Structure formats: structure tokens, C-alpha cells
């Protein structure tokens, strides 16, 4: 608990920054995009909705004009930002000890490595939950204030999918941070990985290849699919849980056995 308390204190501003940024953005952008939907002509949507761009993000014209369409569309982009946050947080919570030279301080205190691992993992989890909860709350407020007739069950699933994607990248980040503790550019790493993952989903949507879609968490939580079926795809969900478990087990095993890396 001591390490968790200090880790949270250490990353408080960082978590708060991302929380406010995502919450404010979704709150402001949701009514803006819905007002755009209200004034746009049907012809425009028919033209736009059939382009490869919309296929790549997994939405159609019908979905865009549905009550949750714009929100799902926006959330698919916010997932990029939250993915970067999750992965960056997961990586840097470990690499900072090495790059800032504090590992010799922390790892020589009377706590086993497993306690340190779980304290750091829990810090990241709390960060992800806080960001996700704020996003959900801001989304709820925006929809409740500016959009009537929202199907709240599906809305909740779409909003929650942002947290789940963030969690996926956070677990991946923990693994990357432990495997490469000397990484001095965690933000660049996170940005690149998230971008590649997003491109994989876009690519799999365009060529309609389900096998490729299993390589990216963005495919697991398509807003249009959620609206269509009323729940997450259980195959994707199971696969996602399996991957997250794998990341955690691997990172935990390596963390317990690996030599601590030092700045010099």
C-alpha cells in the first residue's frame, strides 16, 4: 500500500491531465458533431458513408445517422488517444525507475519485487479506470444534455469499450516497459504501437479479413457491431482477456527474475 500510495501521488498530475483532456474533449465534441449531423444533407451522408474511410473505422451511413452513430464514431478516435495514454503509462511506470535512476532506491527497500510489480500495475489500473470513468461520465452528460433518445445500454457498452482498449494497451505497456526498461522515448513507442494497431483494424475492415482483426484491440470493440448485437463479440472479448493475461503473466515472470537495469 505504501508504494501504491506514493506511485499514485507521483503520477497524480499525469492521470489528472489525461482525465480532464479526454473528458472535456468528448463533452465538447459530441454536441458539435451532432449539430453537424442535424444540418448535413442526406446526400452528403450517403456519399461520405460509403467511402473506404468510414469502412476503415467500422461505421456505415446507417450507423452514423443512428442515435449513437456520431458518439461511436468519435469514441473510435478517442480510443487512439486513450490507447496512447494506457500504453505510455504502462511503459513509463517501469522505465522511469531506470531512466531517472531511482531503481536503486526503490528496489533495495524491504518489499519483494512482486509487491512492487503489483503496486505499479495497480497504479496503472487506477489511472485507466479514472480516465475511463471520467470519459463515461462526460459522455453521459453530453448525451443526456444534447441528445434525446439515447439507448443507454449500448451507450454504456461503447463508452466502456474505451476503458477496455486502454486497459489492453496498459497491460501491453507494462510488458514492454519491463522488457525494455531503458526505453527513453515511451511516448513515441506508445504512439507508434497504437497507430500500427489502429491501422491493422482499418486494414482488416477494408479487406474484411477477420483473422487479421484479432491482432488489434480496436477490432474487438467496434461501435457499430455493439449497436447491432447489443453486446461485445464474445470471441474477441475472450481473445482480449487471454492476451491481457498473457501480457501480465509474462511481464510478472520477467520482472521477478530480471536484473535491475541502471541508468549508468
Amino acid at each position, binding site marked *: 500500500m*505504501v*508504494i501504491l*500510495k*506514493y506511485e499514485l501521488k*507521483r503520477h497524480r498530475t499525469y492521470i489528472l491531465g489525461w482525465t480532464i483532456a479526454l473528458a472535456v474533449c468528448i463533452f465538447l465534441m459530441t454536441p458539435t458533431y451532432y449539430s453537424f449531423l442535424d444540418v448535413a444533407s442526406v446526400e452528403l451522408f450517403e456519399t461520405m458513408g460509403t467511402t473506404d474511410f468510414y469502412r476503415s473505422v467500422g461505421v456505415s451511413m446507417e450507423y452514423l445517422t443512428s442515435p449513437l452513430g456520431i458518439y461511436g464514431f468519435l469514441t473510435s478516435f478517442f480510443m487512439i488517444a486513450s490507447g496512447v495514454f494506457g500504453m505510455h503509462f504502462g511503459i513509463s511506470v517501469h522505465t522511469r525507475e531506470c531512466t*531517472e*535512476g*531511482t*531503481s*536503486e*532506491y526503490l*528496489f*533495495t*527497500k*524491504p*518489499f*519483494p*519485487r512482486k*509487491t512492487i510489480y503489483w503496486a505499479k500495475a495497480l497504479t496503472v489500473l487506477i489511472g485507466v479506470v479514472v480516465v475511463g470513468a471520467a470519459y463515461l461520465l462526460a459522455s453521459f452528460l453530453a448525451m443526456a444534455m444534447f441528445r434525446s433518445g439515447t439507448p443507454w445500454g449500448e451507450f454504456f457498452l461503447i463508452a466502456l469499450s474505451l476503458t477496455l482498449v486502454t486497459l489492453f494497451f496498459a497491460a501491453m505497456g507494462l510488458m514492454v516497459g519491463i522488457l525494455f526498461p531503458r526505453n527513453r522515448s515511451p511516448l513515441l513507442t506508445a504512439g507508434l504501437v497504437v497507430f500500427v494497431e489502429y491501422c491493422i483494424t482499418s486494414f482488416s475492415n477494408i479487406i474484411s479479413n477477420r483473422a487479421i482483426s484479432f491482432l488489434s484491440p480496436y477490432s474487438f470493440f467496434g461501435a457499430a457491431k455493439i449497436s447491432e448485437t447489443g453486446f461485445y463479440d464474445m470471441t474477441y472479448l475472450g481473445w482480449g482477456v487471454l492476451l491481457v493475461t498473457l501480457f501480465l503473466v509474462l511481464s510478472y515472470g520477467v520482472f521477478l*527474475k530480471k*536484473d*535491475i537495469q*541502471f*541508468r*549508468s
Partner: protein
Amino acid sequence: MSEPIIVLEKLTKHYGKHRGIDGLSFSVDQGEFFGFIGPNGAGKSTTIRTLMGLIHPSGGNASIFGLDCQTKASVIARDVGYLPSENSYYENMKVRELLQYTADLYGRDCETKMYELSERLNLDLTRKIADLSLGNKKKVGIVSAIMTSPKLLIMDEPTSGLDPLIQQAFYDILKEENSRGTTIFFSSHVLSEVQKLCDRVAILKEGKLVGIQSIKELRESGYKKVSITVKTTIPRDFWGLPGIANYTESPDKTSVSFMYNGNITAIIDKLHLLHLDDVLLEEPSLEEIFMHYYE
């Protein structure tokens, strides 16, 4: 005889093809002030980091308080104060916050000792770590290591960056801790401080243990430093005595100095044959003895 607190048995660490330490075996007794000297890159920090369970040995083993340093590192850490050679702490914290973090990690109330040590070392607790100089960061590490009143202090190059006045205050603190029964493992390449403080010293060279001796024995090893100035030149083959080492002479060969480990009467007999200007027979410094080891 006191119980050994630290025991190293053929401790070896290699970083791929690079040498770290090779087959180190020695022990440190309870209450001892033990020096660990060697030049940069000799393997001092590697040894210490292995003792602290930060890195895993390639061979051999090490124990502290009879517990294995790899499997019981966190249990051992309860009674160990560690000062790393690197002075890096959480930059966004204030000094007081960091020291409180240390106290919380050990689950001890160290406030009185924290204030006492900070005052003696002239450390400002209200400043942010990021704003501290190298020397002040070192002070933070010293206070953090000692304030929990550990049974064993492991200090890796503790005086680098400290000014002479603070160094003296630090030596006094260490002596007091040692007199209270704290075992101190003190790594340094500054030989004069090891000479001043330690009971025994282990000398490390290229990852291997060159020797381990008490400071007293080291000094009594019989070496004398002889410096002579004469009116005429001294031929190189003049001495013809065994036990002469580190022989140096001035370009005009009127001044020579060397280390001598042999019958002192034989040297004095030889000196009678010279037209002396000046003679100096003195105890060599530990540094000079140490350099002799390194030849």
C-alpha cells in the same frame, strides 16, 4: 570471534562477454568497518548490487545475516541501509517527502534521527530534489540510509560530491554508528578515507580480489618509504638489496625514492656510503601500498 554478517562465496557476475566480478570470496564480521577499494570499473558496484539483490550472480552466492541475497533480498533489506553510488531520487519530491517515503517503506518512525542527521549534514529538507546539487543529493542518500538505524550500512562511494567539512561530519556519523554496533561496508576509491575509517580492507582489481587485510597489518607489512637527496649521483646498481620497489629517480640522479621492505640496518649501512643532503624514512600512505598491489 564475531559472527560474519556478509559472506561471499566465489561470487561471479558476467555481463555477456564482459567481466563484472570473478570468484569473490570474503566475509565481513559483525560490528566491523569494512573497506572495499578498487579503481573505477574494478567491480565494486557490481558486487554491492549483487549483495542487494538487484542483479543475479552468474555463479557463486552471497548471504547477509545468514540469508541468501537473491531469494531473501526484501527480508535482508529490513536491516540494511543502502547508499547507491548514483544520486538519483524522485525529482518531483521535496527532500522531506522522500525521507518520509523511506521511513514509510521501512515502517518506522525516523523523524528525530532524520532531523538530527539533516542538521549535522546541513541538508535543507524543504527543497525539491530536482533543485539539489550533486553533493546535496548525496546528503539525501546518506540521511535516507542511516535514519532507519539499520544493523548494516552498505555505502557505495559515499563521499563523492561532498565538501571536506561535510565529509568530516559524515565520517563522525559513521564512526558513531559503528560504535553503536552497526556493521559498515564502505566502498571507495579514495584510499585516505578508507585508511581513516576502516578496520579491514578488501582490494579489488579487474573483478578479482587482490588482497584482504586489516589496515593495521597493511601498514605493518614492513614497507617504508625512503626518499634520499645526495650531493653526487647515485648509480642504479648501488643498492643491490632485495625488497626495493617503486624505484624513482630525478633526471640528474641526485634524488631517489622507493618503497623498501627488508632489513632497515642494511639501508642505513648503504646510506653511510653516500654524501647525503637529506633523508626521509616514512610510513607509506595506503595509496602507495595500494599502487604497489596494482603493479
